[in-house]
């Protein structure tokens, strides 16, 4: 097939399998690069359908696709979404599988075309050996920026991906991320041992339809009042991000009490069934607002989110860009608001201190790694993954010192974004070293109270009645569930 024929065929598969007429920016180029046999790093902004690239490639070539992903919730969302799109030969190999499930999956591994796996599960010899026996048409490394040591999302388990790729026979590889500086780009290519003919597809992280706003308020009480004002005047649906589960719950309670909006919390304390319910209530517009922590599934595909408000500032600009990227995936005007009280950063500083092991702790666990076995928190798991890489103690200590400094620098950059007097969009592009000048206008960004009417985002009508989510009599529920006469 020549290039034109390939493009036509890709377009056909897009229409037949996914129901879309046209590719989003970056998708076609990424696919062409892969079809031509080049391992590819695709840096595409949030909301551009990165996952479609490997799904379509699998459908196009009928080959097996192995996707390595850092977050279990992300994998589960992807699997759920693919099954909904009638791609049934898909499975996620994660630590959440029960022994019975894992046995079942391993026994039937050859029947799956799309296999998602966390990097830590690939370190299980039994599982990895099973995978090695299968022909892999495409290896995908999702959220590839997690490879970068100086990145805030760095995952030590990602360090072994180059070795894994080699052991799998250097299959064609697609690394995906929304945010990568040139330094991170180089690291990804080096760590994954990309060949010389590999390609990089880079699109700007900028999302011009998202208005960027930072508003400073005097106190937490003033922040709550302003939040109430915003959610009752801006057209939803909306997402509010928090760094604390407790605060997210408190604000759900406040908004439920003081507005007629339908609001729910979404964070790591929710069980899987409740996460499904809340996500789907939101997707189907039975909820107006979600108060979430970063646990809110990255794979949630709701296109019409009109606003993302940050009640707490995130740990770094990368997270901020990822999180506000949930807004306006339909291309319509949307807004990202960061509410800031001077001193808010102290919460992030505290979290940073808590999230990095101290020198004495590193020393102790380095000599007693067996004690880390039962400690499930992220902090200790992080340390365990690192010790497993057989790093020397001085290097380990110096890594964590550097890691703390990097995290601190990343937070300082986030704070600088809040305080900058220049164009905020330009600030973000500069931070990601995009060599581009923003043509600032009234729909670009602003510090201070925002005029939502100017953006066409004022609330148009009263939200639907809250009763939509009221409990019903069980006879009524059963009648509706099973289409029985009431």
């Amino acid at each position, binding site marked *: 097939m020549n290039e034109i024929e390939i493009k036509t065929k890709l377009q056909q598969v897009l229409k037949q399998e996914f129901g879309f007429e046209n590719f989003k920016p970056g998708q076609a180029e990424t696919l062409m690069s892969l079809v031509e046999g080049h391992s590819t790093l695709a840096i595409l902004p949030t909301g551009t359908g990165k996952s479609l690239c490997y799904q379509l490639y699998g459908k196009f070539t009928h080959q097996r696709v192995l996707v390595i992903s850092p977050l279990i919730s992300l994998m*589960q969302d992807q699997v759920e979404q693919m099954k909904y799109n009638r791609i049934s030969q898909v499975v996620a190999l994660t630590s959440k599988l029960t022994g019975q499930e894992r046995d079942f999956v391993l026994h039937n591994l050859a029947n799956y075309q799309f296999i998602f796996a966390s990097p830590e599960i690939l370190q299980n010899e039994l599982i990895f050996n099973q995978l090695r026996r299968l022909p892999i048409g495409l290896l995908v490394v999702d959220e590839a920026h997690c490879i970068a040591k100086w990145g805030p999302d760095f995952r030590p388990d990602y360090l072994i991906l180059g070795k894994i790729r080699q052991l799998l026979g250097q299959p064609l590889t697609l690394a995906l991320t929304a945010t990568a500086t040139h330094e991170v780009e180089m690291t990804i290519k080096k760590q994954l041992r990309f060949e010389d003919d590999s390609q990089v597809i880079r699109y700007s992280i900028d999302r011009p339809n998202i208005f960027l706003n930072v508003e400073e308020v005097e106190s937490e009480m003033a922040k709550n009042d302003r939040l109430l004002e915003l959610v009752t005047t801006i057209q939803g649906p909306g997402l509010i991000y928090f760094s604390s589960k407790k605060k997210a719950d408190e604000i759900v309670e406040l908004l439920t009490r003081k507005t007629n909006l339908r609001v729910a919390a979404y964070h790591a304390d929710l069980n899987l*069934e409740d996460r499904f319910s809340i996500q789907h209530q939101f997707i189907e517009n039975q909820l107006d607002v979600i108060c979430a922590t970063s646990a809110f599934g990255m794979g949630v595909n709701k296109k019409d989110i009109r606003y993302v408000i940050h009640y707490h500032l995130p740990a770094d600009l990368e997270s901020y860009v990822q999180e506000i990227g949930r807004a306006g995936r339909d291309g319509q005007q949307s807004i990202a608001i960061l509410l800031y009280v001077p001193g808010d950063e102290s919460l992030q500083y505290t979290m940073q201190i808590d999230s990095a092991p101290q020198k004495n702790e590193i020393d102790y666990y380095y000599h007693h790694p067996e004690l880390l076995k039962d400690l499930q928190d992220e902090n200790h798991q992080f340390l365990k993954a690192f010790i497993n890489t057989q790093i020397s103690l001085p290097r380990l200590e110096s890594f964590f010192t550097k890691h703390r400094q990097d995290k601190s620098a990343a937070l300082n950059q986030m704070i600088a974004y809040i305080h900058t007097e220049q164009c905020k969009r330009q600030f973000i592009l500069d931070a990601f070293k995009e060599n581009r000048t923003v043509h600032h206008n009234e729909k670009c960004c602003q510090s201070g109270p925002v005029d939502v009417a100017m953006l066409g985002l004022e609330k148009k009508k009263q939200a639907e009645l809250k009763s939509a989510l009221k409990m019903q009599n069980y006879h009524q529920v059963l009648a509706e569930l099973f289409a029985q006469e009431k």
Partner: protein
Amino acid sequence: MADWHLLHFFDQRQPRKATVLRQILTNKRTGSVLFWGLRYHYLDYLNAVPRFDVKKFNDVIDELIAQKWLQSSAQGLQLTSQGQEVIATHRTRYSFVDHPELNQKFDYQLWQAILLLMVQVASEYRYHNSNYYVANQNLKAQFVIKSWLQVNTFEMLAAEISECLTQFLDQCDPAKADLFTAKLVGHTQNGLSDGQIASQLGISPLEVSWTWRDLALQLAAFIQARSNLKIGQLVQITALPGALTPTIHQTAMLFNDGKTVDQIIQIRRLRRSTIEEHLQVLAIFQPDFPYEKVLSESDLKILSRVYAEPDIDQWRYAELQQQGFEMPFLKFRLYAIMKTHGECNE
């Protein structure tokens, strides 16, 4: 307010060790835990909260002590009158489960996934919809339902599950029945979260989750009891061996056949302590345990003389030696189990 529900497991007269409660709730089945579980009337609660985190549990207990709802002494924890008052004031129909013992009969995690999927698949089928987000990602549950549907029909699934749910819920407390169906997912129904239900009923999310679990397990037993139902096969997959594990069953068979402890050790090639523990567990769960096979008349005479104290909780094995008697621990423990069962019968 501190979570007061664990107060339910404490008594104003009998001091109880919190560790025993945690181990019972999380299904730790050593002979010692089960013995003290028997003493504290906890055995129905085995496996009731299998993933109760140690730290979380200890934090709750510490808080209950700090509130002076529990009193701590060297013997254990006792419910205070304020604690009793808290239970009386806050208790609602959702506070405690009705059938905790069912946690030992069914694998709740798997059953919950199968049940939710069954309902969703049946509901979407009734609306002729084959394209929907699957509510539960449990692979085994998905596999067993697919396999079941290869032999049976969607219509049978829909007919049986809808009929069963109606009959079962008609016999339940209607308020609990409403709670139960609020979490079901199906055509145009996304289900409500525990938090959403809790805020509507003015109870805690924990109470929602316990009540749902209790009813789900009761539904499993309801279906299992109706042998004509094909969906009973899906319940059967989740059945647990119960209090006696297969290895204890093997020991029990040999013991009931008249084999002595030494013979059982030889046949089974297991350690003495393991076989003795099996016999303790057997005695705890088997009301007609033949104590005479282990305890001779003279053993019983000695034991009744040494342990004249009526409070069995106070008995210590060391007392036998202190009074100059040599007797294996197994005999001491079996005697205590026998007397405890006797107390219960009285």
